[in-house]
């Protein structure tokens, strides 16, 4: 028996919207401690890891660990039927091949049940080692989304280089080139607008903008985004989900043949 009641139902909608373009089907793993997902995109270049801790739910009941394979497009269709202020309850019986989403309007005058069929998904769980990153950049998520969007109109890849001066996003395409430099800036009124750079070593990595743009779909979830970079490691783009957990995107870097470019 599984019953998860999420008062802030829009959060779940945003989560699904942020990953459905990247991943078609995924297993949601529910345990006594939380609701999580790990999935790779079909080309095995990017990986998304989601965690919603049990404490973040108003009511969380998960009698036994259960893995529910869902098609995210279908899930998104169903969640779109909920209002933004609705309370969403996810329910599943043991051994059942369906999951039920229940939407309650805030004043309890409307209750909707949507039942979705589950799928058997063969997905492999990857072990993600804890790593020390050479550089960690925290910046406003909207800013990051804007940068990725702008650069993708020029080129296909973005070179992210972190130095003492700041973080530089650059691209090059048929029509020209672009460089955007963000300097560390902690003297802002609101802490979420700060750009904080922690750097142990300069890094310079190239990524496909297509994926970055897809990651920025999670922007509504958090005001800030954290980019953790290390040479030889995938970048981690993390959006914290307030008081609940996180959504992390891992993207394998492009292999640079010529570092001077």
């Amino acid at each position, binding site marked *: 028996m599984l019953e998860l009641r999420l008062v802030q139902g829009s959060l779940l909608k945003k989560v699904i919207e942020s990953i459905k373009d990247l991943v078609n089907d995924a297993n949601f793993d529910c345990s*006594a401690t939380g609701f999580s997902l790990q999935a790779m995109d079909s080309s*095995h270049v990017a990986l998304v890891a989601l965690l919603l801790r049990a404490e973040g739910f108003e009511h969380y009941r998960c009698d036994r660990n259960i893995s529910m394979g869902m098609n995210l497009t279908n899930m998104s269709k169903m969640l779109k039927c909920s209002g933004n202020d609705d309370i969403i309850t996810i329910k599943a019986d043991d051994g059942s091949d369906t999951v039920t989403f229940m939407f309650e309007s805030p004043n309890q005058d409307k209750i909707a049940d949507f039942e979705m069929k589950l799928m058997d998904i063969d997905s492999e769980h*990857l*072990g*993600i*080692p804890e790593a020390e990153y050479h550089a960690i950049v925290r910046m406003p998520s909207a800013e990051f989304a804007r940068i990725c969007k702008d650069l993708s109109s020029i080129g296909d890849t973005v070179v992210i280089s972190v130095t003492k001066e700041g973080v530089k996003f650059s691209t090059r395409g048929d029509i020209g080139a672009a460089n955007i430099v963000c300097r560390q800036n902690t003297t802002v009124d609101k802490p979420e607008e700060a750009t904080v750079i922690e750097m142990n070593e300069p890094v310079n990595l190239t990524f496909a903008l297509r994926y970055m743009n897809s990651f920025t779909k999670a922007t509504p979830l958090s005001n800030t985004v954290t980019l953790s970079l290390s040479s030889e490691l995938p970048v981690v783009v993390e959006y914290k989900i307030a008081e609940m957990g996180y959504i992390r995107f891992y993207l*394998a870097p492009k292999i640079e043949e010529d570092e001077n470019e």
Partner: protein
Amino acid sequence: MSEIETLAILEELSSLVSDRLQVVSYKWLSRNFLVSSNAAKKLLQEFVEKNKNDFEAVYTIAGWLKKTPPTYHIRLVPQPKLAEAKHDFDGNCSVQVYSVQACIPKDPAAIWNAEYIQAEELFKQPIAVDNCLRDNRFCGVSNSLVKRNAEGAPVAITVPQAKGIGNPGQALGSSVKQTGSVLQPQPKKSEDASPKLALQRSSVTTPKTETDRSGTCDIMQIKAPDKDKTSLPVKKKGQSDKTSAGSKTSLTNLWGRASSKSKSTNSSVEEKCVASKTNGVSVSADAQITACELSEAASSDDNEADVNFKRASNDGGKKRRVVFDDSDEEDYETAVNLGSPDVPNAKLSQDSKFKSGTLDIENKKLNFDKQDDCKPIVKEETVIDDANPYAKEEFSALYMCKNVRVATSEKIHERTPDVDTSSKKKATEAAPSSPKRRKVLKTRIDERGREVTEVVWEGEEVDTKDTNPIKSVSESVKSSNVQAKKVEESGPVNRSSTTKKSPAVGSTAAGKAGGKKGTNSKDPKQGNILSFFKRV
């Protein structure tokens, strides 16, 4: 262990427990960080002392119960109940941290999930890989009969792998050497200054392994002193029943099945395969091929050979067919390597389960790993069978061994895998390149009279068309190149000793084209996430 190492592990432990919400037991810790189980317990103890308030700990209490007759009892209790539980025990009892976790799971099985999965993974590794479960290196219980091999290659068919927690092979090992096997107690047990120590030892240690296997982590209760001798064989019987559902207690059954249970991807494949087989003769090989293909999709190692064993009874005679599938993936040289190298073993174990699960099915089928190549191969097989009635006769009593040439050495794996074998009958897939090495199936009778089938790298060209090629094969076998070994007891009862001595080795080629194209072939520069993170 050095201080730094300890700190690193403790730090990682903290992140495992708090971020990934994993239950970390000492067994898991020991295998994961390659420390001895005692060191792992100490680490956990240290961890618990440091982070008493952040995490929940489950303790193992072991000792004699107060009630009469005294029974030896091992109990897992959460921290709050520790003091209370101690009252149930008589005098001294040992208290150790069993596991740490973010919260006490509602389902007790969750305590044990992580380590079970881990043990499964370890057993799925290729047999040639000597991991910590196979050689039992971290277990507190040691077995004097276990030989460890410095190179890591298992010693032929003795029982080196037959031990370790959760290994069904243990049942086998101890039944073979029942009288001689002296189980030494885990060190923690010796803390009990009981006069019945000797008896207690064996009674404690053996059920413990059983408990590990069966997955209950609640309470183990052992009638201590006198029942000892009887409990031992009884347990063995139970284990062998469990591990080999078929009546044949071949070693492959025992070893293979342990790891093939309940792994999601594999089991679904198996279900498909078995289902398609039971449908009868008319089922096309495609279903199986598709199924096998699925599991194969994960494999990345160029040099692995997948061995599909299929046994079918024909008119009372036993027939076995061995197919070697060379799962050479040519396109992996552009894509970054997809995964961990332990797939071949998973496949092996899957197949051996497969075999025992389909003993009774009449029609014989071959399993192939590649969808793309299946049809040509099937034809080849047919050709061989028809054109080689001699070999076919032999089948009723013998293994049919098929060997497959692997595309040269590892270094030139980008070449189209070569499927040529010296048997001229199948020209279909033969590729002209000239491999220097290949995998060969070698069958021989070991000193115990069992038939041993093993896969070995063969150095130079060997004409396997020869009706009795076993000699030349064995000549060129380099024992150091053993990639995988399968040990089979001679199953069919009607097999005579004379036929055992002259196994026919048929040869065929499994055609092998690269199969699936790299998923990210559109951009060769794009790295693959799987080259950074390993599958767990």
